[in-house]
């Protein structure tokens, strides 16, 4: 059954109509935008490499909140919770009893979006309803997002421990629309870790939007680990807006989902802002992982650096699209982008599309993209020292990825990411041996 009345978009429209919300409200406007756009098709340039037919046919309706995570799900979720401040969500809703708000400096606000809307609307007002006409996924999120994380850092506050936003998808056949907001006041500094995972058999769709506002001189380190279940879909859009002298460091690790697309838009709005976007993709079997970034140099003297590495095994597909816009006033811009894919199988495929739109003349911009197999010389070198073929392959892949993981500032987070990589490689080796 793939009729129009049973596909994912239609199920969302039907649900929205059934909810009977206020016709003139922001949600209704967002829903109308989505209705006009529909799920993006590959005819749209920005979605050329990533098709959503499977997502459409999966007939995923917005989660209605009736089903709750089982005790088995809860114990799986509990096992993954690290120490430190965190907001935990299951099936799109805050789980206060699993969250930890303790130990934060005075003035720091960390709470769920639903709570904030109900009790402190001033915290989130005017910060979540930016309307992006062309982005269907953001519109759909705006129409449905019921919860998410809100973190507000007052000026000058520096958090010494990362704050975690964790989402667990337990239900199957459902869609979760989360919306997070981080406001980093002038001169503040923090690390935020977003984690997405789910029950092994969950065939669900998580569609997240994260808004990041960086005040003057603020530093925000944003780490995202996408480890959704094997049948799950994941789409996400992060928008960072940087004031003068602010610093945004992003690290995205993909290790899960059948299809994932992570969009990052960084707007360098005032002079001296800088951002660094790093990403690692680990994909096997028929996984499809898409990283799409837009860096908007809107002011003079800003710098941006992007470095993404993908490891593709089996029939996996890795996509990177990176647009860099340098506006006429953005003189003295420095922008660099590097995309590297390692193909572990002849059937794996990588697509890289850099797009530089430069309207200023005094700039330094560069980009590069490579895709290739493991270095045969390096493999032989390791084997000539007694290291077996599988182990040698794993060491080379680990080395390829470690160069980026090592850039993650927080030691605990870095160690966690390294162990994810090691586990992924161990599993890959087991599968190869089992064949």
């Amino acid at each position, binding site marked *: 059954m793939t009729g129009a009345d049973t596909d994912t978009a239609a199920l969302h429209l039907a649900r929205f109509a059934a909810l009977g919300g206020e016709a003139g409200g922001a949600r209704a406007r967002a829903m109308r935008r989505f209705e006009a756009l529909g799920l993006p098709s590959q005819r749209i340039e920005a979605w050329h490499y990533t098709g959503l037919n499977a997502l459409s046919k999966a007939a995923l309706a917005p989660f209605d909140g009736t089903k709750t995570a089982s005790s088995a799900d809860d114990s799986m979720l509990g096992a993954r919770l690290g120490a430190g401040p965190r907001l935990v969500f299951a099936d799109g809703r805050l789980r206060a009893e699993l969250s930890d708000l303790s130990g934060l400096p005075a003035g720091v606000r960390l709470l769920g979006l639903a709570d904030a809307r109900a009790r402190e609307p001033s915290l989130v007002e005017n910060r979540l309803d930016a309307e992006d006409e062309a982005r269907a996924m953001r519109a759909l999120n705006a129409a449905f997002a019921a919860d998410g994380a809100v973190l507000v850092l007052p000026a000058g506050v520096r958090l010494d421990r990362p704050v975690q936003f964790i989402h667990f998808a337990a239900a199957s056949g459902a869609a979760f629309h989360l919306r997070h907001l981080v406001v980093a006041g002038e001169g503040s500094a923090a690390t935020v870790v977003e984690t997405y995972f789910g029950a092994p058999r969950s065939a669900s769709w998580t569609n997240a939007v994260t808004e990041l506002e960086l005040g003057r001189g603020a530093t925000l380190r944003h780490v995202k680990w996408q480890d959704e279940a094997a049948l799950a879909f994941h789409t996400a859009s992060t928008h960072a807006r940087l004031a003068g002298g602010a610093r945004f460091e992003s690290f995205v690790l993909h290790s899960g989902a059948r299809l994932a697309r992570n969009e990052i838009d960084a707007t360098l709005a005032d002079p001296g802002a800088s951002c660094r976007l790093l990403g690692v993709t680990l994909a096997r079997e028929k996984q499809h992982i898409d990283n799409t970034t837009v860096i908007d140099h809107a002011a003079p003297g800003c710098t941006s650096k992007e470095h993404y590495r993908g490891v593709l095994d089996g029939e996996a597909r890795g996509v990177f699209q990176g647009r860099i816009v340098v506006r006429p006033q953005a003189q003295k811009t420095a922008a660099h982008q590097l995309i590297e894919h390692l193909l572990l199988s002849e059937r794996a495929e990588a697509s890289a599309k850099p797009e530089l739109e430069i309207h200023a003349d005094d700039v330094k911009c560069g980009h590069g993209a490579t895709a290739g197999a493991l*270095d*045969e*010389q*390096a493999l*032989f*070198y*390791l*084997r*000539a*020292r*007694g*290291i*077996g*073929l599988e*182990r*040698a392959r794993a*060491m*080379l892949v*680990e*080395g*390829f*990825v*470690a*160069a980026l993981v090592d850039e993650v500032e927080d030691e605990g987070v870095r160690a966690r990411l390294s162990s994810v990589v090691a586990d992924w490689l161990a599993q890959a080796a087991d599968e190869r041996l089992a064949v």
Partner: protein
Amino acid sequence: MLEIRNLHAEVGGKEILHGIDLSVAVGEVHAVMGPNGSGKSTLAYVLAGREGYVVTKGEIVYDGKDLVAMAPEERAREGVFLGFQYPVEIPGVSGLSFLKAAVNEVRRHRGQAELDAVEFLKFMRQKLKLLDMSEDLLKRAVNVGFSGGEKKRAEIVQMAILEPRLAVLDETDSGLDIDALKVVSNGINALRGPDRAMLVITHYQRLLGHVVPDRVHVLAQGKIAVSGGKDLALELEQKGYAMLGAKDVRAA
């Protein structure tokens, strides 16, 4: 320890080695010299088992075993070490974790207990002391950003740590200045021993001034043209490879 009999080998479908006979006894150091393109590096790669270096005829017997049938890692675990002419840079892989993995592969193969991180460091430091070398090189990613001399020194450190029974050193002296040559040749000499055989492949005589071989073989056009004692190297240095075939010193 090593018996090479009528060895023919090809690379990319082209025969490079046209019947080599060579025998190295345990405790001996043999030098293999020869002009560029004579097949010296091919011989080294064939001994180490590099993919694409195909033995088409003849045999290589190492410790009574058929070396050709073994994968490169099996040869290494059995005690064959290749010192690379161009050691490979491996970004992101730390020298220490690489060497620890290698040592433990060899130890497991020999039925010895694996070394943990602390035991490995202790073992490594003993070996470095023996060579009078510092561990700085090993803390970085494998060979990444090393100068030519550092790469060759690192190969000698690896040899010391892996304790091979047969070391094949492929132009370990190439690209070294006088000081680096001294460090490297002192290292090689420190690792000579009654339980170890070495095949030192070199284009020039100068390494052999420091590492005095028991036998010298000269390779030309994929065959051993002459063999002799240590003085053969000196004679070659004076007369050049053009002397090959002009004089039979095999009886020397």
